[in-house]
């Protein structure tokens, strides 16, 4: 079996095979601490978090077609939950992770009335929520906003570096695994219908509001969990550090760079961008947002399908060159590799 | 004189909805295109106007090639289409709709043309300040035709002008078509009512699945047993 047909078989094959691939990938990555020093391990943790965040964004943005422009809020809320929970209430890490995820999901549940309206309301409301949280947390004494006696929260790292490495690797596995399962579940089919034609979907009885809300809650809960776990790793949490707009920017860029609406997209995008970051502009920190913004504009304008669509386009060409018979209809819906024309 | 040859076109790459059609309006004032639902009639007309996602073949108007032009350039050269379902501007008034039809004309020309259309359709004059979206189907059809005529087109394309209208309005519209041709405009007509379409036209083309299956003088087609059987329900 050659590479092309293997890739195709995995994409269209049963969920079990995809999860198996994920497990193999995680196992290989789990060997990294044997050969890597602390610098690289820290870097890997950032890569895991970025991929995890982007994959979460991809669930509602890529698969659902509803872009969230305040997704960083859920990470920030999680990080604050972690910081406040551990410092003020002395809670253990697993507890604050659950709390962070639950808080984020609850916040996402507030969007139900927004989901009843046209898509543009969602996009703008998420942006509004980000501004609201940034301002309110900055001014609220309970969260030690700027007006208070302290500028932020300092945490003792509760795990050794390897511990964090495996924690975030495990979380990444859970996130990607859950997305693989969700995408092939009833929710995934509903999302596919919604993204293709929402009016049609609801007219044939798909309960669009319900599925959008569930998806958004899942997609918000994971960044909350990641944020809470990230707080002790970062050791210092403030509005500036965890509510920065570049966190949202990162999620979007990584997803569309790799390919929105594909499971593999955020993983490929996260790895590729981290490599580029390391060799090209890790040193241009003050231009970071500018470069990321410019990349987003370039990809959406020139190649909206991202790397994944380049790859699958190549696979499709190889396959049709190999056997010019009509392609058998694949089980499951075909992943959307290129955006449809409206 | 509109001439179309080897025309192919469609919505998705590689799928031709219109597959190798020719028509030549030279000899006739009114030409009708017949075909069952989904035969590709609307797609063909949209293709002539430059609105299909892809198209190949030649479209010529008095020797000038139109097939590479954008829709607005084709319209400016004198090919005007009244779309299926009329396509009036619902939030613009009747007068504003007509002015858009004469887009680019100077104010005095606009005024005389508008007067001409109001004479043709007194009903529109009565409702000149009305929002188009609030008008009846028949009124909207008149408005759509008047809007197209504002530019003094050389070719007027009518896509199922009788669709969804009361019989008395349909009669009016079919009475109108020969009068339009007296003003020097050639008409390309798609019509569900094949009998009427053939009566009013001199030439006709029957298309099926994007290809021409029959064509010729309308009088001959009216007598053709295949047409009588499949379109007129006679034998």
């Amino acid at each position, binding site marked *: 079996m050659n590479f092309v047909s293997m890739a195709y078989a995995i994409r269209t094959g049963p969920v079990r095979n995809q999860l198996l691939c994920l497990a193999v990938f995680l196992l290989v990555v789990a060997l990294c601490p044997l050969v890597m020093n602390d610098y690289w391990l820290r870097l890997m943790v950032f890569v895991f978090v970025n991929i995890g965040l982007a994959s979460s964004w991809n669930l509602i943005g890529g698969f659902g077609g509803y872009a969230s422009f305040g997704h960083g809020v859920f990470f920030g809320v999680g990080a604050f939950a972690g910081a406040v929970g551990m410092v003020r209430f002395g809670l253990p890490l697993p507890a604050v992770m659950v709390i962070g995820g639950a808080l984020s999901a609850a916040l996402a549940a507030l969007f139900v009335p927004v989901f009843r309206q046209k898509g543009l309301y969602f996009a703008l409301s998420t942006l509004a929520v980000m501004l609201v949280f940034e301002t309110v947390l900055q001014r609220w004494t309970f969260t030690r906003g700027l007006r208070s006696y302290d500028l932020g929260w300092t945490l003792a790292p509760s795990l050794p570096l390897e511990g964090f490495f495996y924690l975030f690797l495990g979380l990444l596995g859970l996130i990607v695994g859950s997305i693989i399962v969700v995408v092939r579940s009833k929710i995934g089919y509903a999302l596919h219908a919604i993204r293709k034609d929402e009016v049609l979907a609801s007219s044939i009885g798909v309960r669009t509001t319900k599925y959008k809300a569930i998806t958004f809650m899942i997609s918000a809960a994971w960044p909350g969990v990641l944020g809470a776990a990230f707080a002790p790793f970062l050791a210092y949490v403030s509005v500036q550090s965890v509510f920065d707009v570049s966190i949202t920017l990162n999620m979007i860029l990584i997803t569309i760079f790799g390919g929105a609406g594909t499971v593999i997209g955020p993983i490929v995008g996260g790895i590729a961008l981290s490599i580029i970051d390391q060799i090209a502009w890790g040193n241009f920190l003050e231009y970071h947002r500018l470069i990321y913004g410019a990349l987003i504009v370039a990809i959406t*304008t020139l190649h909206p399908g991202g790397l994944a669509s380049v790859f699958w386009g190549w696979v499709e060409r190889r396959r049709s060159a190999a056997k010019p018979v009509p392609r058998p209809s694949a089980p499951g819906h075909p992943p959307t590799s290129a955006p449809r024309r409206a | 004189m509109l001439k179309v040859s080897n025309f192919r076109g469609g919505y998705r790459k590689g799928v031709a909805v219109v597959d190798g059609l020719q028509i030549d309006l030279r000899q006739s004032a009114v030409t009708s295109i017949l075909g069952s639902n989904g035969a590709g009639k609307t797609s063909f007309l949209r293709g002539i106007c430059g609105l299909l996602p892809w198209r190949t073949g030649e479209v010529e108007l008095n020797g000038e090639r139109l097939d590479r032009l954008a829709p*607005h350039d084709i319209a400016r050269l004198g090919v005007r289409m009244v779309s299926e379902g009329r396509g009036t501007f619902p939030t613009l008034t009747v007068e504003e709709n007509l002015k858009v039809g004469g887009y680019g004309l100077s104010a005095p020309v606009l005024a005389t043309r508008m007067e001409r259309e109001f004479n043709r359709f007194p009903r529109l004059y009565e409702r000149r300040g009305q929002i188009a979206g609030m008008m009846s189907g028949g009124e909207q059809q008149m408005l759509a035709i008047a809007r197209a005529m504002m530019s003094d087109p050389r070719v007027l394309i009518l896509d199922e002008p009788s669709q969804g209208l009361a019989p008395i309005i349909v009669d009016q519209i079919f009475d109108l078509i020969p009068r339009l041709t007296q003003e020097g405009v050639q008409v390309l007509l798609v019509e569900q009512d094949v009998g009427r379409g053939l009566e009013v036209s001199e030439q006709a083309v029957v298309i099926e699945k994007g290809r021409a299956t029959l064509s010729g003088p309308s009088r001959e087609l009216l007598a053709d047993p295949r047409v009588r059987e499949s379109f007129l329900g006679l034998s």
Partner: protein
Amino acid sequence: MEDVLVYGLLRGGIYALAAFGFSLVLGVIGIVNFAHGALVVFGGLLTQYLAVKFGVPYAAAMIGGALGTGLLGAVIQRLFVARTFTLEPLMVLVQTFGIATVVTELGTLGWGSEERMLRLKTGLPPGFMLGDTFVPSFDLVVFAVSLVSAAVLFVVLGRTEFGRAIRACRDNRESAQLSGINLGRTFEKTMFLSGTWAGLAGAMFVTLSPVAPYMHFSWTVDSFLVITIGGLGSMLGALVGGLVFGVLSFGASFYAPTIAPAITFGVLLVFLVFRPQGLLGAGPAIRK
């Protein structure tokens, strides 16, 4: 209470100006322009730059700032949005989000990230009393100018061939093309109008309050709130929405500064639940 009403209304004119373009682009091109707030800020800073750096008189600087912003809008349309607006809405949203970031970061590189304000010496009397409320005369003049600008936009859209073409494209793109209207050019002009009035809003706001690049998303969100309150797709709705929003946001930051943004967002949710068509009802359907 009267204070809040008066000051809120005076600011509201500017919010309305900012929202017109956002609403217009949404209705005509069918896209949400996340870079709209960046255009408002750009207009304010450009005006301030022209006035301070080159000593251009304010009125000229304002017009220069507005036209410059309009031009930026048209360029964004031609180079970027024109290629993507027919794709699914997601991509245009993401794209304009990226454009907003780029414009803002470039602005920060060029003009710095600090807040700037343009204080004008007008020679006007400081103000007068309206009942118990002091009304600053400069703010009143700015309000009057914003109403005049709104009227000019209404005339352009309602009475000129240019405005008719824009409305025709909004109502039915294909019919507009079949009538000889160039869709791409019309969209560029729409973006130009949108940018020009956004720039005007910025140019006026910078004389009353500080403006800095980081504020661009607030302007985008505020424009959105204004048209949600007033009603999507209606220019008159944007005017009413702007005035209401002015009072609302001024009141919120006056009475509860800590949670002011949360209050305005709460109002948005209330509108979405109870009156999604806004105060002035819905105009033509917006596609996305």
